[in-house]
């Protein structure tokens, strides 16, 4: 309350005490106070303490003067904060993009994907592959279903060429049920949404394909498109290009009725093929519906190991992982991991600010004392220091925005995204939150610490003469330890990820994938494959040419295989790879027993080669010559291959067999001479465009394809590398600042020590000891922590490196080295100073 009011109240109180009891006087006092709760009194109360404009201007001036006076501290803080904000912003952009994937469909809350849950001998296996007939059957049998549609994954028909006359474009497409666009609400630009796929010969294309082939979307309607020079379709509609944040990217869709002709097997209940999507009616109890559909397949087939499960489509992208039939992880792991890293890096930078400001506190302690004596209250001081840190963060944020804008192309390359720095409200709000929270976290401790100092103590005691109190020292050291713990953990983690990836990519996986390319069979190569392969073999630089089912890393599976002595309850998922003659030899797969396919034997079309794992699982004693299969498909085992990794090393080698079926092979595989690969490919391009006019020679290197299996891990590694670098950089900046400060404060002590005969190295040792200790503690904390984190990451891999002691030792030594270099630079300068210079004044 205002001074005069307090005075009046006191005066009345003492007046009363002289002629009344003290209790009555006190009571009266409070009555008077309550009587003062009037608008005028309260109104006076608020603005008096803020003095908004004046204080703000005063604070700003002080802030900038402080920046100017302590340039190194200012720069350290600015660099630290802006670097960390760059990381945080990039992570925010990435996370934002990941989270937005597949979220834009209109009825997301009742949009479900139906998946199969299969109980196999090796455990439960969850897959999006379902019988093609499932969607329409569910629409018929369940009243809860509003729309149902089957859809093939875009990856099945990628690299398809669509022609109009001579003009062709490489595209990928899907076969979908007629209600596909009711469920996936991609905007339809042209055509009647209800009748897009009424006819088998209908095709709906994306806007860019339409423009590419016909010049503009409008004129595409009703025109004919040739599919791979095999079939003709009529354009019945045009949809808007699929947005980038869709997990499925495709350029055209065809009718599922057409797909029934192309692949009738996919529509049998026994088989699993395309995916099934449902749009449920509003108000359907999903749990009851799930329970209802679970046993549906049992009624359709004689098998009982397959169940149906439903999951919301919006969850499919982030929560795609299943471990033994239970949802667990997926991309969300990376989203959480990187969000955590972003926050940690911000914290590291905030710690620098806190540390440097408390360290500098002794310098500003007089300023605070004077201010308090003159009448500043605590709130004003807190406000001043917080505004100082927020202003600094704000400057850092502007710098960071600039850097993000410059680095975004590189970042996009690493993350395989097309992020743009689009300053809409969301981003601005996020940015503002980031600035405010970082500013408050960074400035909070010094603000409350400094404003709480007692002015009398400030002037009387020697707070500013050298020794600081234990609590302050402890906090400061604790923060440095925390910083370095994080940095070291990150270094270890990145090193382990790198080593593991190196191990995976260089491991002898059992087949030779160097200098091998493959490309789709299309156009003229569909017929006369043998002739084509022969011609191909004649191209200079080509060692051999053959064909295979799909690529080695992706392909079909079957459980329909019986053999002698098979346990009737066992269900084994066998990978099938149809191959042509010469494939086994080209890939250098070792035959352990028996022989490979050979043109010398006329009956080889009914022969198979198993890998060792498959034979072990089947438990056949004398496998060569045995007959396996089911129903009309009976095969003779002619050979056994040594195991090779046809999948990611995250899983163990599964059972697999090769069958000789050139008619089912979809990819042409070519082994090139190891020298002059580029020239050979140029020649192949020429050869291909002559042989198969209009088609683009779209090849894939087998080793690159193999590396792509680890795309997510590679991304983590390369991003992690930068983040670890940033973390250690910021930590060192902080240490640098602290070391500089300590050296400066102890300059007289050093001078006196030197005069008394301390050697140069002794002084360096004296100054470095503190910091070395902190980093050592950090190492002690970080090593078990990083061991735990890395070993849990590695446990995802079936084949992995062992964690060597020197990963940890290396990270520790690196941190120690970098820290001592940082500190050493400062201390060496302090130790080398001439004692006269530092002792002459005072």
């Amino acid at each position, binding site marked *: 309350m205002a001074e005069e009011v*307090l005075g009046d109240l006191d005066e009345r109180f003492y007046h009363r005490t002289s002629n009344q009891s003290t209790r009555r006087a006190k009571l009266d006092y409070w009555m008077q106070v309550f009587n003062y709760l009037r608008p*005028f009194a309260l109104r006076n109360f608020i603005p008096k303490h803020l003095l908004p404009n004046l204080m703000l201007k005063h604070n700003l001036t002080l802030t900038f003067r402080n920046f100017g006076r302590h340039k190194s501290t200012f720069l350290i803080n600015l660099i630290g904060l802006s670097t960390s904000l760059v990381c945080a912003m990039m992570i925010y952009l990435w996370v934002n993009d990941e989270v937005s994937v597949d979220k834009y469909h209109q009825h997301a809350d009742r949009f479900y994907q139906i998946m199969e849950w299969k109980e196999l001998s090796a455990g439960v296996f969850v897959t999006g592959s379902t019988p093609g007939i499932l969607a329409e059957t569910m629409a018929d049998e369940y009243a809860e279903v509003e729309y149902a549609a089957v859809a093939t994954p875009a990856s099945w028909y990628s690299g398809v060429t669509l022609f109009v006359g001579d003009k062709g474009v490489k595209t990928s497409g899907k076969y979908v049920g007629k209600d596909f666009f009711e469920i996936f609400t991609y905007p339809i630009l042209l055509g009647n949404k209800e009748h897009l796929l009424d006819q088998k010969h209908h095709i709906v294309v994306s806007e860019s394909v339409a423009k590419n082939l016909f010049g503009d979307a409008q004129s595409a309607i009703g025109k004919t498109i040739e599919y791979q020079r095999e079939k003709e379709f009529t354009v019945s509609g045009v949809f808007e290009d699929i947005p980038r944040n869709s997990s499925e990217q495709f350029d055209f869709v065809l009718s599922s009725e057409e797909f029934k002709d192309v692949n009738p097997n996919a529509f049998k209940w026994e088989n699993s093929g395309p995916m099934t999507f449902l749009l449920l009616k509003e108000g359907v109890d999903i749990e009851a519906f799930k329970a209802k559909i679970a046993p549906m397949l049992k009624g359709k087939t004689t098998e009982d190991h397959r169940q149906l499960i439903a999951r919301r489509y919006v969850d499919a992208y982030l929560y795609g992982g299943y471990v033994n039939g239970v949802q667990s992880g997926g991309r969300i792991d990376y989203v959480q991991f990187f969000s955590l890293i972003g926050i940690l890096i911000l914290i590291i930078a905030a710690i620098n600010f806190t540390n440097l400001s408390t360290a500098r506190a002794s310098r500003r302690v007089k300023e605070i004392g004077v201010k308090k004596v003159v009448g500043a209250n605590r709130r004003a001081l807190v406000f001043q220091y917080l505004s100082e840190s927020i202003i600094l963060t704000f400057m850092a944020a502007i710098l960071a925005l600039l850097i993000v804008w410059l680095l975004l192309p590189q970042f996009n390359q690493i993350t395989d995204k097309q992020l743009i720095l689009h300053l809409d409200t969301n981003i601005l709000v996020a940015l503002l939150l980031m600035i405010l929270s970082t500013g408050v976290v960074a400035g909070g401790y010094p603000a409350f610490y400094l404003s709480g100092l007692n002015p009398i103590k400030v002037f009387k005691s020697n707070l500013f003469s050298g020794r600081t109190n234990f609590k302050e020292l402890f906090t400061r050291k604790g923060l440095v330890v925390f910083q370095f713990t994080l940095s070291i953990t990150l270094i270890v983690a990145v090193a382990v990820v790198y080593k593991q990836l190196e191990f995976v990519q260089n491991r002898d996986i059992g087949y030779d994938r160097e200098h091998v390319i493959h490309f789709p069979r299309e156009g003229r190569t569909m017929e006369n494959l043998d002739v084509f392969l022969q011609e191909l073999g004649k191209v200079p630089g080509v060692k051999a040419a053959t064909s295979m089912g799909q690529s080695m890393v992706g392909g079909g599976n079957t459980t329909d295989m019986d053999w002698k002595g098979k346990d009737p309850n066992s269900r084994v998922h066998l990978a099938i790879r149809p191959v042509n003659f010469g494939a086994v030899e080209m890939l250098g797969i070792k035959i352990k027993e028996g022989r490979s396919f050979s043109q010398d034997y006329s009956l080889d079309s009914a022969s198979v080669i198993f890998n060792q794992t498959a034979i072990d699982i089947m438990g056949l004693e004398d496998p060569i010559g045995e007959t396996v299969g089911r129903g009309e498909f009976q095969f003779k085992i002619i050979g056994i291959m040594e195991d090779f990794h046809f999948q990611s090393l995250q899983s163990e080698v599964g059972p697999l067999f090769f069958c000789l079926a050139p008619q089912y092979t979809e990819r042409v595989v070519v082994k090139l001479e190891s020298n002059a690969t580029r020239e050979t490919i140029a020649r192949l391009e020429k050869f291909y465009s002559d042989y198969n006019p209009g088609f683009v020679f779209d090849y894939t290197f087998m080793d690159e394809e193999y590396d792509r299996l680890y795309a997510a891990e590679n991304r983590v590694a390369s991003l992690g590398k930068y983040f670890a670098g940033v973390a250690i950089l910021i930590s060192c900046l902080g240490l640098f600042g602290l070391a500089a400060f300590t050296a400066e404060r102890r300059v007289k002590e050093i001078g006196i020590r030197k005069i008394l005969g301390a050697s140069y190295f002794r002084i360096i040792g004296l100054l470095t000891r503190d910091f070395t200790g902190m980093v050592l503690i950090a190492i002690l904390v970080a090593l078990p922590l990083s061991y735990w984190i890395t070993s849990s990451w590695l446990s995802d891999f079936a084949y992995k490196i062992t964690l060597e002691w020197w990963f940890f030792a290396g990270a520790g030594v690196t941190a120690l080295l970098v820290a001592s270099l940082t500190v050493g630079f400062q201390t060496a300068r302090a130790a080398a100073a001439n004692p006269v210079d530092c002792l002459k004044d005072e």
Partner: protein
Amino acid sequence: MKETRLGEFEEVILLLVGILAEDAYAFKIAEEFESQTKRAVSIGAVHSALNRLGEKGFLTSEMKEGTAERGGRRKRIYTITASGQRALSEARDFRMALWNQYPAFSTDNLNFNI
């Protein structure tokens, strides 16, 4: 424009400020009010009225040195302004005009208890 009418309570307070002159601060005014009118009043009410009068431009105030009795805190001393004087005399004239119009004017049975 701000309201410049003078309420009854305000009029009394304004007069007391004039009477107390150099000693016119909230506590003293409240004391004086109580002793003159025999009505209890809180300092808050007096202060609020003083504040209102200040806003109406009838009073000015300045801080004066305090006494030990009030913990060395300063006092806010109020002074009537010219417009305050005018408002007082207008109020009196208005009252007198009313009295003059009152036909049964008699000082004997006047019961002045508002």
